[in-house]
């Protein structure tokens, strides 16, 4: 392959893997944007999604994409329950408390999975796991493309939800000013539950979608996903759901180009450096906006 | 008498909006300058620009003949500015005394002395009996006085008061007016934004009227309150 073809291939890979990152990140963006909680358990919910796909595959022989039908609603309700019984109780405490709570949740999820499934890495073998097709000389991985499509659909759906629906407006209002939202008649507790439910649902969905591509282990993978999600979220702008996709793609391309043309051992650092640069020059993220007044 | 503070041609823009347009002012020690104008006229923005809390587009600020235009806010404080915020901003998790102590530490290093200074300022504003109460629990009038105490404890030469009288009931208002007068009597230069005309008229030596970021009138309280444009834009007719 000529240099330029390889370059194109790398860009394509970066964009595709960026779609994966975006998928991992959007739930976190949403939760952070509305609840101002750094959800350290986000990656563990992704892992939980992966295990749910493993479980459905083992018990019912389902393809991961089929198990989305069950896993997403379950994820939503799990999120609602966690919010109701844990996070809603620390909402008025200092912000560190919520961080602590999510750390606790993270430990509980990881170790509950460990006790149920054991520590072996798990994955779901699908026939299309390594299949590719090529467009204009560029190889495209089937699973990555599927994940990318899922990302675009989810983000579009969320965008519509947030900007075109009543609930969406209520969510944004709650994010901006909780008391103000209550005063206009928004049940902000319910909104928080819904938002966290959506966040977990998105995490679970990311996990299910990614299982043909990756693998899950109970305790290590969660932190890796959480970290990626943070980076994506900040790159795009906290709370800006549409920007998660830009953040994800930026991260993917930066990492892939860095690993392809530079030192591959620093791959994880390239994204973090981009993350720091963005934070320094645009603290509100690439597409974020905030109003600050003295 | 020499001017303590001079601000020349202050212009502040937010995006495309000019919030303050080419406003100048000067102030001598022991004098009170009143700043009035409709809501959104740019009074707070002008305060912020002069005290260093909002970036200025153009203009020049001198304090005691020293050009401070390029200095950050905290350095201006060290050189002699004290300010309050329109929405009070106490250090909520600390006690009233500690709030003032922080400001007092600017001029004295020893804790015992700083504490003495802070207490004396609290006496002055009438909060001494609340010294050990968490600042969070104060009511509006007391929060205002705390805000004032913090501004005074840095031993300023110029003090900026942004609507410290809004929301006070008449007795509290009277006390505040007397208090501000005593400040200027001590030689402080006072710059105050107020919508309460009673206070402006009673206290100000000179009044500047802003509207839409422009200076539309200035003069003695009597002059500006009888100014047609001011009445139309700001005071209204009874």
């Amino acid at each position: 392959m000529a240099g330029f073809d390889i370059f194109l291939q790398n860009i394509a890979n970066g964009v595709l893997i960026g779609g994966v990152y975006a998928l991992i990140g959007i739930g976190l963006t949403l939760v952070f944007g509305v609840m101002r909680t750094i959800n350290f358990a986000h990656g563990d919910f992704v892992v939980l999604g992966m295990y749910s796909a493993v479980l459905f595959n083992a018990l019912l022989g389902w393809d991961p994409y089929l198990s989305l039908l069950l896993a997403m609603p379950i994820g939503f309700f799990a999120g609602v329950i966690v919010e109701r019984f844990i996070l809603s109780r620390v909402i008025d405490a200092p912000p560190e408390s919520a961080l602590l709570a999510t750390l606790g949740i993270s430990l509980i999820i990881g170790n509950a999975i460990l006790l149920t499934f054991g520590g072996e890495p798990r994955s779901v073998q699908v026939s299309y796991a390594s299949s590719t097709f090529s467009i204009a000389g560029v190889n495209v991985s089937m699973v990555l493309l599927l994940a990318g499509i899922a990302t675009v659909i989810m983000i579009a759906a969320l965008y519509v939800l947030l900007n075109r629906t009543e609930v969406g407006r209520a969510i944004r209002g709650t994010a901006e000013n909780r008391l103000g939202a209550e005063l206009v008649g928004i049940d902000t507790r319910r909104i928080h539950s819904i938002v966290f439910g959506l966040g977990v649902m998105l995490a679970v969905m990311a996990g299910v979608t990614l299982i043909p591509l990756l693998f899950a282990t109970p305790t290590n993978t969660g932190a890796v996903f959480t970290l990626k999600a943070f980076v994506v979220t900040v790159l795009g702008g906290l709370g800006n759901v549409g920007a998660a996709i830009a953040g994800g793609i930026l991260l993917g391309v930066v990492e892939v180009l860095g690993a392809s043309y530079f030192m591959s051992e620093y791959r994880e650092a390239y994204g973090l450096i981009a993350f720091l640069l963005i934070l320094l020059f645009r603290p509100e993220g690439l597409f974020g906006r905030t109003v600050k007044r003295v | 008498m020499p001017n303590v503070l001079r601000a020349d041609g202050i212009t502040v823009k937010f995006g495309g909006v000019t919030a303050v347009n080419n406003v100048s002012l000067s102030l001598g020690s022991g004098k009170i300058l009143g700043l009035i104008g409709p809501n959104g006229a740019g009074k707070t923005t002008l305060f912020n620009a002069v005290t260093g809390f909002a970036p200025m587009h153009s203009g020049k600020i001198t304090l005691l003949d020293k050009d401070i235009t390029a200095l950050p806010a905290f350095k201006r404080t060290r050189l002699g500015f004290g300010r309050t915020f329109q929405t009070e901003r106490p250090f909520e998790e600390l006690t009233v005394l500690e709030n003032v102590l922080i400001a007092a530490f600017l001029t004295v290093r020893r804790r015992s002395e700083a504490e003495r200074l802070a207490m004396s300022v609290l006496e002055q504003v009438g909060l001494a009996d609340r010294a050990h109460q968490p600042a969070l629990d104060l009511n509006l009038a007391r929060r205002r006085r705390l805000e004032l105490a913090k501004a005074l404890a840095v031993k300023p030469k110029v003090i900026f008061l942004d609507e410290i009288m809004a929301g006070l009931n008449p007795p509290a208002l009277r006390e505040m007016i007397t208090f501000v007068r005593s400040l200027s009597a001590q030689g402080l230069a006072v710059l105050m934004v107020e919508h309460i005309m009673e206070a402006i008229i009673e206290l100000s030596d000179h009044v500047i009227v802003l509207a839409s970021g422009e200076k539309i009138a200035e003069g003695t309280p009597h002059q500006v309150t009888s100014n047609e444009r001011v009445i139309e834009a700001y005071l209204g007719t009874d």
Partner: protein
Amino acid sequence: QVEVGVINSLSGNFAAFGERYRTGLQVALDEINANGGIKGQQLTLTIQDDRSEAKSALAEAESFASKGVPLVIGSYASSITGPLAQFLTRQKVPMIVLGSADDSITKPGSPWVFRAKHNSTIVGKAYFDYFDHLKNTKKDVPLETVAMLYGNGAWPTSLAKEGKRLATERGYKVVGDQSYDQGVTDFRPILNRFRGANPDILYIVSYAEDGVAITRQMREVGLNAKVIAIDTSAALPSFVQQVGKSADHVATAVSWSQDVKYPGAQELYERLKAKAGGEPSFYEAEGYLALMVAADALRRADPKSRDSVREALAATDITTPVTTVNFKSADGFQGQNPIRSLILQIQDGKHVTVFPDDLAAKQAQHPTPEWSTR
């Protein structure tokens, strides 16, 4: 009653291995006690979790040391086993390494630390012996260039280092040398780079779980090589399950396998399988091995005297279904058993021992066909 202390990772990041080691230890324990224990006394095991953290392992080691156990077995990760070895040496408590394979544990080593299982020098040599062997058996298939891909953990790094040393020593050309950090496993950039270099041999040392993604993506980007070796990950039974047909032809080094031509290996496999309730691997065997070595030494020593236990360990000379054990000091190592590593190849979805010749169950299938033809 003789009590042996075990420090094992049952929770935290290394729990997957801890579970397997525990199975092996228990199979050995049953066997030992069924055969009369230690000089007629029951052997008991106290297995304590170290949460995959050095500080907990050290706290436990202190408590074992003060309790007077004759020896301690532990642990998996080198970041835990290293400090443990240092501490137990200073406390003069004999220690048998459970899982850690890092050279640094027994090199320079200490008179108190013993390892019956392999290390990176042994494993690296096994791989290159295997490559040499393939080169010699099929002269028409040139094997000249190697590309290396490895995680940045202690084990992958040291095995890669050993590989690089051996490659130059034996006349292979290293055409790719890339390490990676644990992340969302996307190896495409590296694999694409390798594709440009067109290596004959892929020498891959992954974190336990990454081999699955590497193999799938290798197929996806069409990276072909005549020999593909993936350390650790490919040895796990789950590897075959998750990679499917693409797993075939992949080679991996282990300390033990069920079809190795050692007496009792097959029977040990059955017992491990029964205890584990699933497909066992060499990890279980290593757990078994550690305790068998301990029991042998305890039988020959006075369990009340750690000095005598240490001496007995140093004089170990036994044959087990896992390997023969004989702690030599050679090549700068101390207390290291010169175990023979085996090379397994996955053939039709099964792990088969293919090297060394005298222990092999079958011939290696060589060369690995291109992805497009399978």
